C-alpha cells in the first residue's frame, strides 16, 4: 500500500485516525524509522509476531474508536515471552471491554520494546492560512508542562531542522547531559524533513504526533505515531 491508499482507506471507512499499524507503515514509506512491529488479530497471532520480532516486546490495542490507548489499559510493556504476550492480549481485551464498552477491537500492535534514550516529539499540523507546520520538542514534561517546542512552516529544509533542534530551551539535553552521549541530531533532523515532505504530499492528513521518538547516540526510532485525517481540510498546497 502506498501513502495515498492508506489515507484513502481510512477516509472511506469513515475513520479520522489511522490505525496503529497503518500509521507505522506510513512512516516507513517516508523513510522514518519505526520500532519493529507487526499487526495481529488474536493473542495467538500476536505471539507468532513477537517470536519473529524478538523479545522483549510491547502490545498495544488497535481500535478505530480509542484515541488514548493507555487510558483504557490498552498498552502492556516489557513482555518477555510468548505466554506473556498472549496473556497481555487477554488483559487488554478485558480492560477495553470494561473501560470503553462500545469500542471495536481491530487487533493488536506488537512492537519491539526499545531501550531507553532521549524522548522527543516531532509533530505536524495543517494550518488554514500557512499550510503544514512542523513542530519539534523534547518529550514528557518538556512538551506537556513547559511547552518547550519550536515550529517551522513547511517545507522544512535539513538546515531548518538542525536549527530547530537548537532552538528549544532544553536543547542542551540533546548535546549529552551529565554522562549521556549526545544524541544523533542528523537522524532527528532527517525525520523532521521527512515529516514535512509527508505533510506536503498528503493534503488529507491534518495532523501527526510522533510521540515519543526515542533518540540514541546512533539513530532515532518512532515508538508511537498518531495520524489524523480529514477530507474537510484540503488547505493550500
Amino acid at each position: 500500500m502506498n501513502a495515498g491508499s492508506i489515507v484513502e482507506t481510512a477516509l472511506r471507512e469513515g475513520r479520522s485516525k489511522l490505525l496503529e499499524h497503518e500509521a507505522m507503515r506510513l512512516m516507513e514509506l517516508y523513510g522514518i524509522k519505526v520500532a519493529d512491529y507487526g499487526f495481529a488479530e488474536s493473542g495467538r497471532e500476536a505471539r507468532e509476531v513477537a517470536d519473529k520480532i524478538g523479545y522483549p516486546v510491547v502490545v498495544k490495542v488497535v481500535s478505530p474508536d480509542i484515541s488514548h490507548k493507555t487510558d483504557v489499559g490498552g498498552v502492556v510493556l516489557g513482555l518477555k515471552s510468548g505466554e506473556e504476550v498472549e496473556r497481555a492480549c487477554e488483559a487488554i481485551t478485558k480492560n477495553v471491554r470494561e473501560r470503553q464498552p462500545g469500542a471495536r477491537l481491530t487487533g493488536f500492535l506488537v512492537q519491539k520494546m526499545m531501550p531507553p534514550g532521549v524522548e522527543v516529539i516531532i509533530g505536524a499540523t495543517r494550518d488554514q492560512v500557512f499550510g503544514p507546520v512542523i513542530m519539534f520538542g523534547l518529550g514528557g514534561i518538556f512538551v506537556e508542562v513547559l511547552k518547550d517546542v519550536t515550529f517551522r512552516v513547511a517545507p522544512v529544509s535539513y538546515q531548518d531542522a538542525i536549527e530547530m533542534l537548537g532552538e528549544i530551551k532544553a536543547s542542551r539535553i540533546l548535546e549529552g547531559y551529565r554522562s549521556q552521549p549526545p544524541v544523533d541530531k542528523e537522524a532527528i533532523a532527517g525525520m523532521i524533513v521527512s515529516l514535512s515532505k509527508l505533510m506536503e504530499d498528503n493534503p488529507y492528513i491534518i495532523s501527526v504526533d510522533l510521540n515519543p521518538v526515542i533518540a540514541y547516540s546512533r539513530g532515532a526510532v518512532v515508538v508511537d505515531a498518531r495520524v489524523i485525517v480529514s477530507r474537510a481540510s484540503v488547505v493550500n498546497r
Partner: protein
Amino acid sequence: MIVVLSVLEFFFNPSSVAVVGATPKEGKVGRVILENFKNKFKGEIYPVNPHYQEILGLKAYASVQEIPGRVDLVVIATPARTVPGVLEDSGVKGVKGAIIISGGFRETGTQEGAMLEDEVKRIAAKHGIRVIGPNCIGVLDNWSGVDTFFLPEDKMRRPPRGYVSVISQSGAFASALLDWMAHHGYGLSKAISFGNKIDVDEVELLNYLAEDPTTNVIFLYLEGVREGRGRDFIDTARKVSRVKPVVVYKAGKTKRGGIAAASHTAALAGDYTLYITVFKQSRLLEAVSFDEIMDLVKVLSTQPLMKGRRVYIVTDAGGVGVMLTDAIELNGLEVPETPADLKERLRSVLPPHCIVENPIDLTGDTDDQRFITVLNELLPRNDVDAVVVVALPQIPGLRGELFEYLVKAKVYGKPLLVVLIGGELALKYKKFLEENGIPVFESPERLARALSALYTYSRIRMQGGVS
C-alpha cells in the same frame, strides 16, 4: 528579484481621480476626501455627484462615464448598495483602480452585505479593476497627494513627508498612528488601509513598497493573513526583507478558538505561536508593543547597518551607563571591555577621574568637548560597531555643541543613538537630534531593544539570513 513594475502604481500616482460621492456638505466623508485631493493632489480631480453642477469650485459630473478625460482611479464613498453600479460604470470607463471607502459589506455579518461584496468582486474581476477595500480608509500618499483618509486635518494631522510606509488592516489604528507620528514629527511616505481586502492585500502591498523609492522602512499592522495566502506571505516578506526592513505588529495574540485541537501539535501551535514562527521564517522584525513599533521604525529608518554586536557607551551619568549596559547585554548585544590601546589613548586625553572602561564615564563635570574628544577616538575604530551617548543635559558643562557634533558624526557611518532623560531642555535637544536623524530614547531598555532589532536586520542584510 521583483521584475514586474508594480501594477498598483495607479493607486499612488494616478494622473486623474474621480471622487464618487463628493459633496459640499460639511462633515461628510465625501467632502473631506475631495478637500484632501484639492489641497494636495496635482492631477485631474473629478467630483461625481448627480445633484451638483459644481463642488468646491470643481466641475461635478453625474457619473464616472460622463467625465470627459481618462480616469485612472475612482474613490467611492457612496452607500454600499450603490457601489456595484458605480463600479460597473467605472469599468466601462476603463478605470484601473478603485478605493472603496463605503462600509456595509461582509463586515456587517448580514447575508445582504456578503452578497453585495461578492457582486463588487465579480464586477471588478470582469473589468479588471483592482480594488482596495471596501470598508476602509484607503490610501494616503504624502508624495503624490493622494489622500482618501476621510478624517479632516484638524482631527487627524498628517505626518510630514518621509520614508516610512504603513500598511494597516485597521483604519482606526492607522489614523491614530499617523496622528501620533505627525505630533512627534516622524515622517511618512505612504499609508494604506485595506479593510475587507477583497483584492489588494498585504502581500501585494509589501511587493509594491519594496520597489517604492520613497519607502525605506515598512511597518505592517497585521490581524491575520487570508486563508491559503500564508506561503505567499512568507515568500514575499522574505524577499522584501532582503531589500528593506519590515517591522510587523500582530494584533490578536491570544489563542484562536475556532480550530479544534486534533492533536498535541495542533494544540501547541496556537495562532500567535505560529505567527512568531512565520515572522522569524519571513525575516520580519516583530514589535511586541505599541512603543516598540515606533522605536524600531525610528532606529531602522535613520541608522546605517550594524556590522557586529560591539556597543560602546559614553556617558555623563555612571548609573545610566550601567542600566544601559545591562539592557544591551540582555538583548544579545555586547558591551566589550575597552581594548588596551584605546584605554591608554583615552587616559592620555581625559582627566584622571574619568572611567575609561566601557561604559566610558566622563562624570558630571564633563563638558561638550570631553564627549567630542572621546567620540572622535571611538567612531573611526573598526572594533566599534555602534555608539550610544548618554548625555543627561542637567549638568552645567553641556551647552549644546555635543549635539551639533553628533549630527556631523553621521559621516562615520555607524549607528549612533542617544539617551536623554529630563524635562524641557532634554525635550528640546531630543527634537533637534531626531529632526537630524539621531534617535533619542529616555528608556535604556527601549533603546537596547531597538538597537538589537537593528543588529538582527543588519545580519539579515549581510548574511542573507538569520542563523
